[in-house]
């Protein structure tokens, strides 16, 4: 699998390097000469011939670019439109190849990110049987099992109930799984791109559970999706009553199909797989159902042969998104180091940044709002002296938990195979900035 991911990332990078609109473009003041030379050496023309550099990026249309936009009329306003992004913006979710496109995942291009919200169209995906097409007028949510009254709700009915909105992240607990034993993928999209933040709107799950009446014996809630995988996870009743949400809205509009349209269960701070998409049924029980996704997957195998089960919470984590792997800096001078930090247990309290591999740390500025269970943007102004540097960020959440180094994490979890325990890698990420301006993914601890 790792091989396939590497191939897909290499393809993405080779296109991006020829694309002047990408942060991976090898055409900065240092890169241009190399780029020109290699193009000439290959007998190629400088006019980039890649698909990316010539076609309109997804979500945009190619328009003629006037010499002076202030001397001509622009595109007319349309009577009805959804909106497009600039033809000069190229970031896309990238599917890092898996054996089938129906059970697969795509990564958010964090290297482009600014602020804390992930555009809905760039929110990472993980699906097990493709994206179902669901007519919301026919979709029902059933609630059965250990309840006083078995009921069903239409989307129309759910949307009439008192709602809340919350800006919140979802992170796949497999985020970074290739990075346990050695630095593997090269970009921050590959190493960290399975986390995204949206504003989610919906009905507190407790509203529905109170409406059906939870019997005292009920301890777990099974959530079931309406896709070909009929995805199922068991959720403790205390969590379900505390802050879970039946979400129908994402970033001010209906949830995108690939994110669970028309209804998704939000399980704040818990691993992404539990946020069941296309939610069609809840069943209450006195015991967990031991579904495939909570036994054979999403369990963390230690070197002892024992596996940790029901490791729900996503622990505090941070990463520098710029400069990050495979970028090429334009030489010594001013740069803003920026990235995101988050915790499934609460709000980020502090982020420290080092440029010398952890010998000296500086407190980064946190951009408000700093919300619990949400991406938090951090920034640190920096003068690069042109010497080799190891860039790292380390966050602390409001429970006092400090993001560990990879060495600390591996000391506790061990390395049971190249992918370690697979899930819940939240260690400090290291980027090596070489004196020639190249940034690469390294392990440094």
């Amino acid at each position: 699998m790792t091989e396939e991911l590497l191939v897909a990332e290499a393809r993405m990078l080779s296109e991006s390097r020829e694309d002047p609109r990408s942060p991976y473009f090898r055409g900065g003041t240092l890169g241009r000469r190399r780029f020109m030379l290699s193009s000439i050496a290959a007998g190629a023309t400088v006019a980039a011939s890649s698909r990316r550099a010539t076609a309109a990026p997804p979500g945009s249309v190619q328009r003629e670019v006037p010499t002076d936009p202030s001397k001509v009329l622009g595109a007319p306003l349309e009577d009805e439109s959804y909106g497009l992004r600039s033809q000069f913006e190229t970031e896309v979710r990238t599917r890092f190849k898996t054996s089938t496109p129906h059970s697969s995942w795509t990564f958010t291009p964090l290297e482009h990110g600014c602020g804390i919200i992930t555009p809905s169209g760039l929110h990472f995906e993980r699906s097990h049987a493709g994206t179902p097409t669901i007519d919301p007028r026919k979709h029902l949510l059933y609630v059965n099992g250990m309840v006083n009254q078995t009921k069903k709700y239409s989307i129309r009915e759910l949307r009439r109930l008192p709602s809340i909105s919350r800006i919140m992240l979802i992170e796949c607990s497999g985020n970074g799984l290739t990075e346990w034993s050695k630095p593997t993928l090269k970009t921050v999209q590959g190493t960290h791109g399975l986390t995204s933040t949206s504003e989610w709107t919906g009905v507190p799950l407790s509203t529905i559970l109170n409406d059906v009446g939870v019997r005292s014996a009920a301890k777990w809630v099974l959530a079931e999706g309406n896709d070909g995988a009929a995805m199922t996870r068991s959720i403790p009743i205390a969590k379900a009553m505390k802050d879970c949400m039946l979400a129908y809205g994402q970033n001010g509009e209906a949830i995108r199909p690939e994110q669970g349209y028309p209804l998704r269960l939000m399980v704040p701070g818990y691993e992404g797989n539990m946020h069941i998409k296309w939610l069609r049924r809840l069943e209450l029980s006195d015991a967990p159902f031991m579904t495939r996704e909570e036994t054979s997957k999403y369990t963390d195998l230690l070197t002892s042969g024992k596996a940790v089960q029901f490791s729900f919470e996503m622990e505090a984590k941070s990463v520098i998104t710029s400069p990050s792997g495979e970028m090429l800096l334009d030489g010594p001078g001013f740069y803003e180091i920026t990235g995101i930090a988050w915790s499934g247990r609460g709000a980020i309290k502090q982020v420290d940044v080092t440029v010398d591999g952890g010998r000296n740390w500086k407190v980064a500025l946190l951009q408000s709002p700093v919300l619990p269970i949400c991406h938090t943007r951090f920034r640190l102004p920096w003068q690069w002296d042109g010497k080799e540097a190891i860039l790292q960020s380390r966050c602390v959440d409001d429970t006092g938990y400090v993001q560990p180094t990879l060495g600390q994490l591996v000391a506790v979890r061990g390395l049971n195979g190249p992918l370690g325990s697979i899930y819940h890698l939240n260690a400090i990420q290291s980027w090596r900035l070489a004196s020639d301006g190249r940034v690469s993914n390294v392990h440094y601890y």
Partner: protein
Amino acid sequence: MFTTTRRASVIASVLLSSAALSVDAALPAFRLGTVAQPSELAAFFSPLPDGRGLPAGSGSVAQGKAIYQQQCVACHGQNLEGGIGDRLIGGRGSLVNSDPAKAPVKTVESYWPYATTLFDYVKRTMPFTAPDSLTNDQVYAVAAYILSEAKIVPHDEVLDASKLAKVKMPNRDGFIPDRRPEKFPPASKTPQLRGAVAASGK
């Protein structure tokens, strides 16, 4: 503009929680939703490890082998060794391992703690291109075949709800609860580059 706003986050979380509370406290009887009849729920299933929720029906290893050859072999292989789909058998003894170069072999045989999960997963998701298309008898049969190839049930087994729930999987006791947050040893005071350094792009 930069603001180091722990206070703002505290205020925000207070606002959030009080908003949620006031919604709950002020709820009128909204009389939405309708009673779901047992007939509507009949299509759903979700067995528990003790066998509650398993449907009626039964299937033999021999029947399962024939169904496997037809429906499963393309992805899971002639010898259940996997391919596009997961490997299904083997791997016992491979879970205790601290070699980062050697992957543990996690299969139904070596890793799955409950046989009811096998029934549930096959029924709801398989075959991959036609999920939930096997009858209950067929699913019991396929489960019997896989478990017999895994040397967990005998070759002449006929599985039904009660027998499936009694199957003791080899890794039944292989799981422990989550004890995070972990106590980490101190970070190294002399950090250094480790492992294979990913080559910079061309």
